[in-house]
């Protein structure tokens, strides 16, 4: 799925950008198109890199590559902080206690994780941080959880069912206070900026519900298929 979407995003961008440029060049003489894009700019030489869509997507690609490195490097500090605290909590046995406390719920959701595995503790903390809107803490805790889940992964490089379940719960995360949206609403003079809290919680719960159902359905049919295959072998 990701392979297809990733490729098509790039291919479509280039085709649409190229098509737009071609349309502009054919339908309007060069001078006119310069003016319609930037009426204030009366330079003789055209800056094709800025003026054409193809030039824009090229610089967008280069900028995005730089941004990706910036984000990753920026994550190191806060990652180190939370991984350090998690290590202390782990050695003190806290994560196991946490994992035990939520075992009744997680047993159903994550059937392949053994009792009291530290992955469960990290996942619970990540989901709690997400709910409170603490995204600075949520990402490192989530990555810690993935690391623990990967220890149980028999095929390195391939996502396990439990990882996908966790990821889907995470992306459809229920946030009790969508702080960013509320802040922007308030800054634009909304009479009731918090009005979105309840609708957002309901929508997010629906997303989580559909996400978990999808994951569980796929896992159910996968299991059926493998059982059938093994039966056929016998």
């Amino acid at each position: 799925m990701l392979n297809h979407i990733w490729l098509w995003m790039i291919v479509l961008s280039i085709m649409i950008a190229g098509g737009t440029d071609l349309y502009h060049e054919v339908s309007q003489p060069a001078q006119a198109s310069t003016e319609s894009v930037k009426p204030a700019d009366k330079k003789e030489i055209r800056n094709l890199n800025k003026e054409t869509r193809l030039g824009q997507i090229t610089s967008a690609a280069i900028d995005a590559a730089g941004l990706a490195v910036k984000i990753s490097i920026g994550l190191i500090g806060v990652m180190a902080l939370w991984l350090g605290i998690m290590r202390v909590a782990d050695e003190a046995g806290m994560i196991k206690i946490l994992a035990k406390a939520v075992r009744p719920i997680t047993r159903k959701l994550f059937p392949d994780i053994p009792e009291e595995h530290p992955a469960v503790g990290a996942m619970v903390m990540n989901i709690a941080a997400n709910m409170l809107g603490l995204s600075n803490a949520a990402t490192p805790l989530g990555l810690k959880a993935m690391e623990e889940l990967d220890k149980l992964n028999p095929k390195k490089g391939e996502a396990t069912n439990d990882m996908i379940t966790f990821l889907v719960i995470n992306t459809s995360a229920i946030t009790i206070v969508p702080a960013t949206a509320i802040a922007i609403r308030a800054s634009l003079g909304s009479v009731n900026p918090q009005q979105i809290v309840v609708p957002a919680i309901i929508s997010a719960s629906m997303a989580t519900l559909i996400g978990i159902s999808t994951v569980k359905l796929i896992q159910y049919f996968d299991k059926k298929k493998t059982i059938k295959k093994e039966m056929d072998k016998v």
Partner: protein
Amino acid sequence: MSTLKIIIDWLSILAIPVIILFFLSYGYLKKVRVYESFVEGAKEGFDVGVKIIPYLVAMLVAIGMFRASGALDVLTWALKPFTSLIGMPSEVLPMAFMRPLSGSGSIGIMTDLMKTYGPDSLIGFMSSTMFGSTETTFYVVAVYFGAVNIYKTRYALTAGLLADAAGLITAVYICRLLY
């Protein structure tokens, strides 16, 4: 409602200091060598940050090109006739497409819509509810799987996007109902 908000606000401010205080002092009481074990754990932070880079570059480049190409306008134009079927104002459609792709991009679209139509209009209400109802799925897939070097994501994106669609459509219905 406002007391609830005060409680929640304080809860989110207190959460991190309390967690840090509790975890570290609990460790100390359990005779963990807190400083040494903190440093030991923190060492992994660098590896994780570096591991994510290739995955994030791949994802953000594709998303960046997609956004700059105007593909979103084409998609919105193509799907405009169908939005009325689910009761979505067509102005909100770019928001629905951008939300799983990019956090900053969807903040931009949401802010524009609220500036143009007002934060308390149906369009403003709907777009900000949409923003609060899901996460940036593509980013999460890249970062979370990247951190453990997973490139075969199997059905993760399918399930994640289905969940997003469910959340966004629910936001449309709820907002129409409450507005």
